[in-house]
């Protein structure tokens, strides 16, 4: 590290770390923003819950441009925050760059794996959760066509779509799955207008249940689906309340638990890969008062049965990452 970097880092540390006492945890949101009603917001809820339960405080920072990733992560580590929780697969490179420089700080990366001694990588078995909502979609559809709208076209999102398609085809092998991606740049996480138009395009192709795995773009998907009176499926956070009675369910990814655990474990937490899946309820489908009328007892029984079988290993949901292709759908 050059002198210049040290000075700048020090200045930044003074600027934001004036109140930082010993080892407060910090949370860095990804593009899409803290209140995306989805991935980032789930992390925020976890952090908030931790703060309420322990009475401690934490620091948070929101990345708004690609160039800020390394800068912000460095700032947090430099200011003495520990552990530093970094959200999003796009931050793998950030952590790879910053973590070796601060060996005494523990980093937690969510959604991607980085193999470093002071990094805990939390990954979710999204394909299993998506499999379950795919089954629900296939049981709810009347047109035998279900849709999937992803955000940015990256392997992680195909991973969601792949599990979904497998679940839908497990219920009905003849079902049509339509999949669209919003875009190929990070702007695809924040384009509800395009999300809404993609939804209308899928509806005109016959889809009557549409699963959005698209961050802020998903708000537009759910809105357009509700306007057209078809069902939608939310993602990451429980989004059932956004349009009560019109969101079939949400594929919940307990990012909040991952953040909560990291904050609770505190500095010097156990590193390595942590996989959150169906057994520990790291992923699952949401059932609450807003969607209870939409999920019949049979549907619930079938999905819960599949859940048990996946946990027991009787049903194998193929991960898109295994060989970068999907057996149930071609992206």
């Amino acid at each position, binding site marked *: 590290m050059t002198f210049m970097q040290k000075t700048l880092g020090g200045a930044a540390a003074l600027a934001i770390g004036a109140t930082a006492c010993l080892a407060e945890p910090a949370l860095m949101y990804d593009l899409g*923003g*803290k*209140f*995306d009603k989805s991935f980032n917001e789930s992390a925020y809820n976890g952090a908030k819950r931790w703060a309420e339960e322990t009475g401690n405080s934490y620091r948070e920072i929101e990345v708004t441009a690609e160039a800020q990733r390394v800068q912000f992560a460095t700032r947090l580590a430099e200011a003495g925050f520990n552990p530093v929780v970094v959200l999003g697969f796009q931050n793998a490179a950030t952590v790879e760059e910053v973590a070796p420089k601060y060996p005494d700080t523990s980093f937690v990366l969510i959604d991607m794996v980085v193999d470093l001694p002071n990094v805990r990588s939390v990954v979710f078995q999204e394909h299993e959760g998506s499999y379950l909502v795919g089954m629900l979609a296939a049981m709810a559809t009347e047109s035998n066509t279900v849709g999937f709208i992803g955000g940015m076209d990256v392997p992680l999102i195909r991973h969601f779509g792949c599990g979904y398609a497998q679940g839908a085809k497990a219920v009905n092998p003849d079902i049509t799955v*339509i999949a*669209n991606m919003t875009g*190929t740049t990070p*702007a695809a996480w*924040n*384009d*509800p*207008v*395009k999300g*809404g*138009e*993609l939804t*209308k*395009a899928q509806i*005109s*192709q016959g889809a009557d249940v549409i699963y959005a795995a698209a961050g*802020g773009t998903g*708000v*537009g998907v759910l*809105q357009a689906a509700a*306007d057209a009176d078809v069902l939608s499926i939310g993602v990451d956070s429980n989004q059932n309340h*956004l349009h009560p009675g019109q969101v079939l369910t949400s594929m919940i990814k307990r990012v909040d638990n991952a953040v909560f655990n990291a904050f609770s474990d505190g500095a010097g937490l156990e590193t390595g890969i942590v996989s959150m899946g169906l057994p520990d309820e790291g992923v699952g489908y949401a059932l609450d008062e807003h969607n209870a009328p939409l999920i019949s007892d049979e549907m619930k029984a079938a999905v819960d049965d599949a859940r048990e079988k996946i946990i027991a290993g009787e049903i194998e949901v193929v991960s898109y990452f295994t060989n970068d292709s999907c057996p149930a759908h071609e992206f």
Partner: protein
Amino acid sequence: MDFLTLLQVLDTTVRLATPLLFACLAGLVCERAGIFDIGLEGKMLASAFFSAAVAAISGSVWIGLLAGVMASVALAGVHGLASITFRGNQLISGVAINFLASGLTVLIAQDWFGQGGRTPSLSGGARFNEIKLPFADLLSGLPYIGQSYAELFSGHSLLVYVGFLTVPLTWWVIFRTRFGLRLRAAGENPEAVDTAGVNVIRLRYTAIAICGLLCGLAGVYLATGLQAGFVKEMSSGRGFIALAALIFAKWRPWYALFSCLLFGFFQALSFRPDVVKAVTSLDVPGQLLDALPYILTVVILAGFVGKAIPPRAGGEPYVKEN
């Protein structure tokens, strides 16, 4: 591809072309008067935010519309002040407006609603709902004509119809009225206009105000017609596509309608890879369709398809000789 699918694609085209059309006509009026405006994007964004925010607070889309248009006209006023009164660089002023709108909307949204730079979702009277034209249900049974009427012409929000009516209106004002003649002259040869005893400065300010009004409508349509609320950066480059459409249209209203529909059509196609594949039997990537408007504009600018000649005095502040 059956007729109904074609109608669906065209339906999407109309929806996506409307904001482009408003912004394109806004740019047309402004540039015809000799003021370049690359701040269309920023004005659209500001209007989208203020219309959604005020509609969310007041519960009335009409008050929202007023607020959105006012915000856009105010930004246009800033552009006018910088580039007409103070004779600043019109491009730089436009860029500044884009940055201002992008930062300000999120900041105010966060302060007012605390939802991370978005407004609450609008519902009921706080948004423009789809209008069903008379007899749409009745005629939908008729093949072709009736179907087109019910699917394509009926069922858009009010602003779509306003947008399409603005085209002949703009044409009439620019090419058939005294005001339009003077406006065009101010963009070609402001000295001549001044010699004839007409106030160039006032003409240009009027043009800028009209530009603000039309941009405002584009933003209002995005936030309260197409979507139900504001999300940061939701204009996502549409103001720049409108500028490309303006060049493609060679600064003419009817051509503008055509080019906006064409650009909207490419976007609509990129949402329907299945249709593209069925028609061309090629696997055309959606990204290529997204990029086509820009490619076409470059082709036009390079002079392959006729010549696009901008107004001669465009970009030049008018300085009265002593």
